[in-house]
């Protein structure tokens, strides 16, 4: 049951003087693939794209977006089913908190979707546990007394409480310090495994995307420029540089060494693997210089 996107284009304010083409001929399939990354700068179209996933923006043509087989073009009736199926967590999601207690806050989404009262309690407890917070400690507290990191977790739990099949996160670690960032990414990996849902992470931080995604789309100027398994995409160092994207340091290093010694494998984005690869490079070099 994938999200199928076929030649999707989108123009803001079509026909007006300041119309802007935000998406040009995008084709992608989001199905059970673990964690997918969408990389791009502001203005690349990535925000517009993800708003199509859950129907916040509806397509302007037939057959361009199908979620679970349903064409979103001129779809009738309430879109609650779509909001439930595709959970969208915006940037700085903690800004949307408004209820008096965490319990009410988490129940908000499920209530709006018409989920029966008796099921909500277990849903919200489970969603808190998913983000690593103890229900008994947090349910009765006011969201506004929590730390920044905790607030963000609650905001993510808000969406998880709706039990989505897809979780789309827009810059999930924006503004977080390195400790909190690492924690959150690990958390996302866990959530994906536990719930067996498809996760889409949108980010301009390549290191972050590299650490969790298996498949990556790189967007620029409203188009998909590169796509593929993460390491394949990241080894296209020059293309990525041209798109003004900061390739993670391990890949920068290994790409440069590969030019000198084609036997260098760009198979790693982590420190350990890269160090090993560098040491092998030096071994081979020493071997060539001979003794």
């Amino acid at each position, binding site marked *: 049951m994938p999200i199928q996107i076929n030649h999707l284009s989108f123009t*803001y304010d079509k026909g*007006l003087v300041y119309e802007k083409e935000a998406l040009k001929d995008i084709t992608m399939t989001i199905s059970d693939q673990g964690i997918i990354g969408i990389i791009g700068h502001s203005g690349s179209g990535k925000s517009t794209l993800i708003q199509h996933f859950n129907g916040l923006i509806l397509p302007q043509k037939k057959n361009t977006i199908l979620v679970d087989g349903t064409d979103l073009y001129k779809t009738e009736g*309430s879109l609650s089913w779509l909001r439930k199926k595709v959970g969208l967590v*915006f940037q700085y999601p903690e800004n*949307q*908190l*408004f209820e008096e207690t965490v319990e009410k806050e988490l129940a908000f989404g499920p209530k*709006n979707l018409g989920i029966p009262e008796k099921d909500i309690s277990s849903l919200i407890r489970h969603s808190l546990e998913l983000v690593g917070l103890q229900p008994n400690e947090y349910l009765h507290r006011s969201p506004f007394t929590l730390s920044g990191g905790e607030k963000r977790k609650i905001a993510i739990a808000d969406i998880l409480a*709706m039990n989505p099949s897809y979780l789309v996160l827009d810059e999930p670690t924006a503004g977080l310090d390195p400790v909190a960032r690492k924690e959150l990414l690990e958390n996302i990996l866990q959530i994906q495994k536990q719930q067996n849902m498809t996760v889409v992470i949108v980010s301009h931080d390549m290191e972050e995307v590299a650490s969790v995604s298996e498949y990556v789309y790189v967007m620029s100027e409203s188009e998909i420029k590169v796509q593929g398994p993460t390491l394949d995409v990241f080894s296209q160092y020059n293309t990525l540089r041209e798109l003004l994207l900061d390739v993670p340091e391990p890949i920068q290093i290994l790409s440069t060494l590969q030019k000198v010694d084609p036997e260098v494998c760009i198979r790693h984005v982590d420190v350990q693997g890269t160090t090993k690869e560098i040491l092998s490079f030096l071994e081979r070099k020493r071997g060539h210089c001979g003794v």
Partner: protein
Amino acid sequence: MEFKKSISIGQYIPTNSFVHKLDPRFKMMFLLTFIISVFFIHTVQGYLLLLAYMLLSVVATKISIHHFVRALKPIIFLLIFTTVLQLFFTKTGPVLVDWWVFKITLDGVYQSVFIFLRLILLVFASSLLTLTSTPMELTASLEYVLHPFKYLGLPVSEISMMITIALRFVPTIMEETDRLMKAQTARGVDFEKGSLMKRIANLIPIIVPLFISALRRADELAIAMEARSFQVGKPRTHLHVLVFHRKDYVFLILSLLYVITISYFF
């Protein structure tokens, strides 16, 4: 939505016209004079003259009349309502149409046309000011006009600062509201459907976060202002000081001419 980014602060549209270059204080005072004069006209010729002046002014601004017409949008119902009211409920004068419950008199026709024109003239006149003056100019004019009240204890400079800050944040807060609406829609809220009560309740997840964000913003803003030596109550100088130029005196003469000719029709 991206399009909101193209809204500038206030309604100012920059063109290089004579009207734009005029001192905003004069513009403001002329606006007042014009508005008052509109209420004293009761003849067809008078209205024709007013219309002529208005059209002349609009042309002088080099701004498309489309923008002036757009300013009527918020009062379109009021416009139609009052015009129709005058048309059907004026009892005086010779009767023109008498059908069923509807009675239209000649006076009624005149009155409805007059009120229609009056409203349009008022809106166009205000637009003349707001389309040709930047928010800073308007605030500075206001500060000038309120200046004497400072001696009565009115914190004129502070009021002026508050207005500027409010204007500056309108687009920013609109963007924030837009983001919040999207975020809450993603949690199943439907802002467009449901009973009136439900729709009002749906505003709480927007208003509460906006409020909290505004409070935090005010706090941070105050600190950032203090860090640049701002102190409430202490006098400040300005980047642009309003100065009367020769063209402003020309305008003054033109305005006097206007007042003289129009009062002929009082």
